[in-house]
């Protein structure tokens, strides 16, 4: 999207020429129609007018009241509400409102459950022995904290100057495998929340060791 405005230089020049003289004998350089700027709700991502159909109307309203008080009046003032009912019968309207409230409660409960699950999920940093003196570190469970594993692996690889990759473990779940014994460093990074590795409560992080044979080290 960032490069959208980048146009070929000749056209920009032509457009400037047009603006300067306002009438050109040859066919004027056609300007692209500017896009309509649509303001989306930051809470439910819908255009503002559709918040009422979303599952977070109360929060949407609060957000709008804070950010754009003028627009809030436009959408939620008394007369706006009256006008909105339009051709719909009163009965249908109340039903709609009820449905929305129900939907909202449901969504809230769902969000709560998701948050709880997130807080309960564990991140394990596992040191796995490869040979006698060499180890790899497997980090598992980061995706529950909405961390992009690929990006995290890249960051770790850069940080430790070693290989780091996203692989599926025996259970078929994704985990990051970093070469070398970096468990303590990873723990510190998670504690500080460097780069993309943020938002993990440190209490949920575990360091475990996985030994190949019984008597090692």
């Amino acid at each position, binding site marked *: 999207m960032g*490069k959208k405005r980048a146009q070929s230089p000749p056209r920009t020049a032509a457009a400037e020429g047009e603006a300067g003289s306002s009438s050109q004998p040859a066919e004027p350089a*056609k300007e692209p*129609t500017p896009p309509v700027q649509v303001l989306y709700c930051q809470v439910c991502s819908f255009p503002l*007018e559709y918040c009422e159909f979303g599952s977070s109307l109360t929060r949407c309203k609060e957000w709008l009241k804070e950010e754009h008080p003028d627009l809030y009046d436009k959408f939620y003032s008394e007369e706006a509400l009256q006008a909105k009912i339009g051709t719909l019968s009163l009965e249908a309207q109340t039903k709609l409102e009820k449905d929305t409230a129900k939907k909202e409660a449901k969504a809230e409960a769902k969000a709560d459950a998701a948050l709880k699950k997130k807080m309960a999920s564990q991140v394990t940093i596992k040191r796995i022995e490869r040979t006698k003196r060499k180890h790899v570190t497997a980090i598992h469970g980061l995706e529950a904290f909405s961390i992009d594993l690929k990006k995290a692996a890249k960051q770790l690889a850069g940080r430790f100057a070693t290989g780091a990759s996203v692989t599926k473990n025996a259970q078929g779940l994704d985990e990051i495998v970093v070469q070398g014994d970096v468990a303590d460093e990873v723990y510190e990074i998670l504690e500080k929340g460097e780069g993309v590795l943020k938002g993990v409560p440190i209490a949920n992080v575990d360091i475990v060791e996985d030994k190949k044979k019984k008597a090692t080290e």
Partner: protein
Amino acid sequence: MFKKFSPSTDIAGHTPVKTSVQRQIRAGVLSQWKIEPETLEAVWPKKEGLVHVKCREHVSVYTVNSEPLFFQHFDGPFYPTLRFLHKYPYILPKVQVDRGAIRFLLAGAHMMCPGLTSAGGWLPPVEDAIPAERLVAIHAEGKEHAVGLGITKLSTEDIKKVNKGVAVETATYLGDDLWPLKTL
């Protein structure tokens, strides 16, 4: 089409599109939508390569700078994404459904005739009638922006006459699984 869609499991791969194919697509888009070449150029500059994102069930999404612009089912018409349509609302002919239908549309239902023919709905007059199997933007009563887009199953005149059954098959709508994807 995107009622259930998750990028991690439903995307088979990203491939850059050959320039010859890109030319074809560009021509197709220009003929199917009412969009000026200049505007399309601004959104999709010739230099920016198109990326074909292959999804399950023969749905292809085309992205520029990893932002989805339009999608296609088999060799069907090119559907703009809803975000794209919001920016350039005039590229598609519009129909309007009444307020009662919005709720169902947002749940992914196809649009039925009565929703379009009732007091809150709006269909183009006889002289601008839309034939069947055409792309339309679905607007809603009292709302400024489109709420979905789909394909007409009957011509608008037939919709008025029959007034029963599916009128517009919804392709994408506000709040489907394509909507939150700003990048692919």
